[in-house]
């Protein structure tokens, strides 16, 4: 659905990374972790298109104004990378943005009793936080493997820990956690009886998907892509399905068929 949303807060949580809370329609309270929003940062034609953001959190609060009932909110976590996110980062409490919510297919949480393994890098941690929150509410055992180039890319780790998630961190330069790729840390821990949920840069997802397939651990990945519409019409955000070839093409829409896919659904390089 389309919703005029009010910015509640917009905080820089790490250099160039922001966490924004917005009012949301009641329907969003039942959004599935992994689903996303398309956000129009202003009413102008520049930037023209909406920007997709995974749901970092969904919850409810009682506003401080008299007579208000419970209000649903959603949060996104974003990095300032271009014109759209630059404008977004300058928004304040009370500003309005236009949202399409909730979009796409989210994570399937799997049966109880498995160990849930979350793997994320940079803003890829966004959908994993909402997922971790829902999993912990079900009383599941959750571990997070978070990576980045340096400590600034490893976001909101204390929030994950506050949920009771066991966290492991790796950075390329060793400024936080182990030095190296988070996938190396993951490899040491991975075993049967686990289920992987991953979101982050494509090379990371590539490595995680291959590792999980080798070890026979079920793995879902949340993909990112350029998209214009978010509703399956522009066909700009497609990815190659597992059996794609030039002769028998098989493209999947990230916005509609995903953004969460079983790793076996997609073709990895």
């Amino acid at each position, binding site marked *: 659905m389309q919703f005029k949303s009010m910015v509640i807060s917009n905080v820089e949580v790490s250099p160039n990374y922001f966490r924004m809370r917005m009012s949301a329609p009641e329907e969003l309270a039942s959004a599935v972790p992994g689903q996303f929003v398309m956000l129009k940062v202003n009413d102008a034609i520049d*930037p023209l298109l909406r920007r997709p953001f995974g749901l970092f959190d969904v919850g409810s609060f009682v506003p401080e104004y008299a007579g208000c009932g419970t209000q649903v909110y959603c949060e996104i976590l974003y990095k300032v990378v271009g014109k759209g996110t630059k404008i977004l980062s300058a928004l304040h409490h009370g500003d309005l943005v236009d949202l399409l919510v909730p979009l796409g297919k989210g994570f399937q949480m799997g049966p109880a009793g498995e160990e849930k393994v979350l793997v994320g890098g940079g803003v890829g941690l966004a959908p994993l936080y909402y997922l971790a929150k829902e999993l912990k509410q079900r009383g599941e055992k959750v571990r997070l493997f978070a990576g980045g180039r340096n400590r600034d890319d490893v976001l909101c780790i204390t929030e994950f820990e506050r949920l009771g998630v066991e966290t492991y961190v790796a950075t390329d330069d060793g400024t936080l956690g182990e030095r190296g790729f988070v996938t190396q840390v993951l490899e040491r821990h991975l075993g049967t009886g686990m289920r992987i949920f991953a979101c982050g840069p494509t090379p990371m997802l590539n490595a995680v998907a291959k590792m999980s397939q080798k070890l026979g651990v079920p793995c879902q990945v949340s993909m990112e892509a350029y998209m214009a519409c978010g509703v399956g019409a*522009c*066909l*700009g955000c497609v990815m190659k399905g597992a059996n794609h070839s030039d002769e028998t*093409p098989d493209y999947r829409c990230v916005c509609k068929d995903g953004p969460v896919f079983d790793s076996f659904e997609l073709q990895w390089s």
Partner: protein
Amino acid sequence: MQRPDMSVVLAGIPMRNPVMTASGTFGYGAEFADYLDLESIGAMVTKGLSLKPKAGNPTPRIVETQGGMLNAIGLQNVGIDAFIEQKLPYLKNVNTPVIANLYGNTLEEYGEVASRLDGLAGVAGIEVNISCPNVKQGGIVFGTDPGAAKEVVSLVKRNTSKPLIVKLSPNVTDVVLMAKACADAGADALSLINTLTGMAIDLDRRRPVLANVTGGLSGPAIKPVALRMVWQVAKAVKLPLIGIGGIMNGRDALEFMLAGATAIQVGTASFLDPSAAQRIAQEMEQYLVEQGIESVRSLIGALEA
């Protein structure tokens, strides 16, 4: 005051208002049902249909540019058979005319797709794409050469009894020449413009942004070009015209009508605002109310120039 009369008749197709959705920007209709009332708009145009399903181009396929976007989707579509089996039944239950947009990889395919669609209940008319800039075969080849255009339009005309709209490319030296060729070959209406061929470059990577290197530019950036072409064609050709190109609001739409369009298509605007087509129809009506204009038809070609 009474509500203004927003209805138009386009090549025999009665429409409740002049607002249509542009091919390739509105899926097969159902994708947008959550965001607008499909029975509030004038007509829907489907994604371009081909004889066989088509996969489209590699990614990246789209990129935003200043005031617009480039796309090189490559006419990905489910194919004519799947359209008839899977998409059309839904559309039949919507009380809004459906225009099937079609294209072929060869001349013969144009004819075959047209004949497949002929006689199908639920398809009010066809729009022939001779102007896609993003596929090697078909599309643009027929759209840039008046002789080839005449040939393909004549062939489609022989294979259909439905109103025939031909969608023109702006990537030509003289759009009027192309319009006349299509009119001579039996087109019942012309829609213009398709996207303008463009390109985006990633300076730091020293690479084109799109996998296809070039793509079609759409959005507000192309509106002045589209208005000019509609105006030129309107002066030269008697056929009803559909104005397309960067229409974002009711005022944009009405400008195209002044230039000579009987109807308009909303394209890129539906990407950023999935309810755009309905909103634009409302804004057009609101303008008529404010100006005391009784019928939207009185604005067609009413430009004082």
